[in-house]
């Protein structure tokens, strides 16, 4: 093979190598755009089932987008409105709107998604009331957990940092000073800041663990009953209503039956069948 021919082949290979991935990325993006647009058209023409199919296909393709989630919620809600709902449509709508709220890059979409998810939960509550069940779809967690989740993990971390610095300064001043007043003040300051350091660091760590090990999800079946790790239903535990936002603890009790996941709904917790909940998508 001549040298010039070898060079030519090498150049061709380089061109193919440099062009092919770009084309792949472009075609993938075009495909997701096309699916999204087909979903939007179906939604506008009132073909809820088709729209659901398109937006679910987007999710299957791994597309995490606030607009796609929002439209998916609209499609499920539309199917309910058209009296053609399948079981779990309200939960799916609530899940999609919750997802859109979490993913929303701007406040306007977040507000719209919040309004939509409230509307869906109101419909769930109305239906529950009609069959004599409690209307609450949302539930508060325990006090400790509420405090931990009252602010973000970063806020707790920042407070812990500040407390750490104050604690060190107080101790230093206390060691260096001979004045009685300053000594008393620095002692009190060191005690308070030390306590704050321990509490805030624990809360930050707890919030981090909650974020790493638990994922937000929504119940997407008409109801889900809490059970123990063997799948035996818990006595006196309220069933989780459709559309309820839950925390799914993926790291909890690996010895549980494989089809079960540990969830928290307010102060109630236990296992439910994995298929009863849908996790909210997020961009890592």
């Amino acid at each position, binding site marked *: 093979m001549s040298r010039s021919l070898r060079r030519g082949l090498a150049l061709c290979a380089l061109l193919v190598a440099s062009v092919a991935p770009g084309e792949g990325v472009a075609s993938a993006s075009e495909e997701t755009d096309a699916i999204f647009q087909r979903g*939007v058209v179906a939604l506008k023409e009132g*073909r809820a089932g088709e729209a659901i199919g398109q937006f679910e296909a987007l999710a299957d393709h791994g597309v995490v987008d606030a*607009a796609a989630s929002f439209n998916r919620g609209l499609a499920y809600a539309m199917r309910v409105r058209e009296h053609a709902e*399948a079981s779990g449509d309200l939960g799916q709508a609530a899940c999609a709107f919750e997802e859109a709220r979490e993913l929303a890059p701007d406040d306007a979409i977040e507000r719209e998604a919040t309004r939509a998810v409230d509307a869906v939960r109101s419909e769930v509550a109305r239906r529950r009331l009609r069959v004599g069940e409690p209307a609450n779809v949302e539930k508060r967690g325990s006090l400790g957990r509420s405090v931990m989740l009252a602010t973000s*993990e970063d806020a707790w971390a920042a407070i812990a940092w500040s407390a750490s610095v104050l604690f060190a300064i107080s101790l230093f001043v206390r060691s260096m000073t001979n004045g009685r007043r300053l000594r008393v003040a620095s002692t009190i300051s060191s005690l308070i800041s030390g306590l704050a350091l321990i509490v805030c660091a624990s809360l930050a760590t707890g919030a981090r663990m909650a974020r790493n090990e638990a994922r937000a999800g929504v119940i997407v079946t008409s109801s889900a009953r809490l059970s123990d790790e063997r799948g035996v239903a818990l006595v006196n535990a309220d069933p989780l209503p459709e559309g309820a936002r839950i925390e799914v603890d993926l790291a909890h009790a690996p010895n549980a039956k494989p089809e079960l996941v540990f969830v928290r709904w307010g102060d109630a917790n236990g296992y439910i069948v994995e298929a009863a909940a849908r996790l909210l998508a997020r961009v890592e």
Partner: protein
Amino acid sequence: MTRVVAAFWLIFAVVGILPSRAIAADVPTMRVSVSNDTVGVGSMFRVTANVESSDEAPEAPSLGNIRGFELRGTSASPSQMTTIINGVRTDRRGLNVVWTLQAERVGTFRIGPPVVTVGGKRYAGQTISVTVVPAGKAPSSPAPPTVNRFDPFAGLFPHIDDDVFGSNEPQFQLNPQLALERPRGQVVFLHALADKTSAVVGEQVTVSVLLYADVTAGQIPIGDVHEAAATEFIKRPLIADDAATVIGNTRIGDRIYTVRLIRKWALFPLKTGELEVGAMSLSIGNRGGAPAVRESERLRVHVTEPPPLGRPAGYASGDVGRFDLSSKVAPRDVQQGGVLSVTIELSGVGNLPGAITPPARAGVEWLEPQIRDKVGIVEGDKFGGRRTFEYVVRMKAAGEIDLGAIVIPYWSPDLRRYGIARTDLGRVLVKPNAAADEAAANDKKAEIFTDLPPAKASLIGAKRAPRGLVNTPLYWFGLVAAPALYLLTMLALAIARAVRRRRAARAESPEQAFAQRIRDAETQAKSADARGIDGATLRALRAATVQAKDVESAVKEQVQRLIEECDSARFSPELIDPEQARVRWRQARKLIDAMKVKR
């Protein structure tokens, strides 16, 4: 004469018949038979000896010469028969012995004679001749015995019954495909196998459980059957649980086993991951002991989702196989508010979806469907069939309404691509009806989700989930940096203080001062300065005096005297002699040593 003739016949009967009865009672009868007189090399056959005796029970059977064959097993079953005719009781004892032999080489061989012992005497039967031909050249064996479908373990040991009824023994045809590396248990064991080890969610995995039983074993009771658990699969039986089929014989090690298919399931995985099919178990009777448990293998199937590339919109996980849809809508024109019937038939191979979602249209209300199934084996081992959904659809809005289409995307594992089953429901003409129109208007008032925001026209991206400070090393550094800095500062200060104190203490100690005086005096003694030497000696002595404890009074006096000498020499001009001064220093040194001053 007549009397003479009668007496003759009587004598003849007594002399002729009685001895023969006596002989018949003494000598046992033995019938020897062979299942096949022509066998192939490696084939198994059986030699049966049936011994009957009216005296003692036959025992200790032995086949005798078996050159050219290998004995693979022996089973003996004793029997006893009592008959009473006209008040006369007759007892007969029997022994049925079956020897299982395997032909080793080509040729014609004589087997036997078999020998039994009756009442301490040994009796031999006849020898038999068997021709051994090369493997596969022997005449074909009869078909395997039929199985009673209501008895899953019937026919498990067919030769036992055959022996009892004296039927001809079939030669074993071996199927090497059923062979295993080694038996999984003694006499009887279970073996489970799946047709694939990886599948996608919803794809059929065919699992069979085979029962292997040693052909030479006696009849063994089997019970306490525990089915294999497959909680992560939808399980559909492909054969009835009470049906068991002999699928062949095989050799494992040095034994021949009859193999029966006792279970066959189509399993459809419900989720991804390493899914397990549990073990099937049963217990077999153990003569004189507790039942032994036999368990099949646990199988694992690696389950994934079908590829995302090319996945059609609306594909539901688990819809795997090959589906077809057809529909019937009647009537095609109705009054507004009236109903029509829509029948949708879903057929194909695979686990047919249990529900379909009708197309949502404004003014069309789909009521709950009636579902009818006709599913089972459709192609070979494939599970499938037909599922019919019968809907009643209420037409609330007037006009020509397109009912839309039913679409079920599926993944075909055979073709390795997605397919779409689709049926168009077509259009329906709905004639206006004032009453229904009013009802529809009322329905509209009660409509929900009327004020939802509009759909988004384009993708807008997503907010990234915060990574979190706590996950970063910076957080932990920031948390401990200030207290650590404080601790380090305090430590440094403490160390500095300690060093300072130590230095000061060492500088001021009497020991240090005394040692310094000694060193000064030694240095001074080397000089020619007599006053300097005396002065240094004096300081050393004084320091020694301060340091010394429990000094003898004589030494004290000598020290005092030397001090005075040094003192006077320092200030006396005539005594300025360096040599004298050195002598005083040496004396002082001796005294200091005598005082044993600690340095």
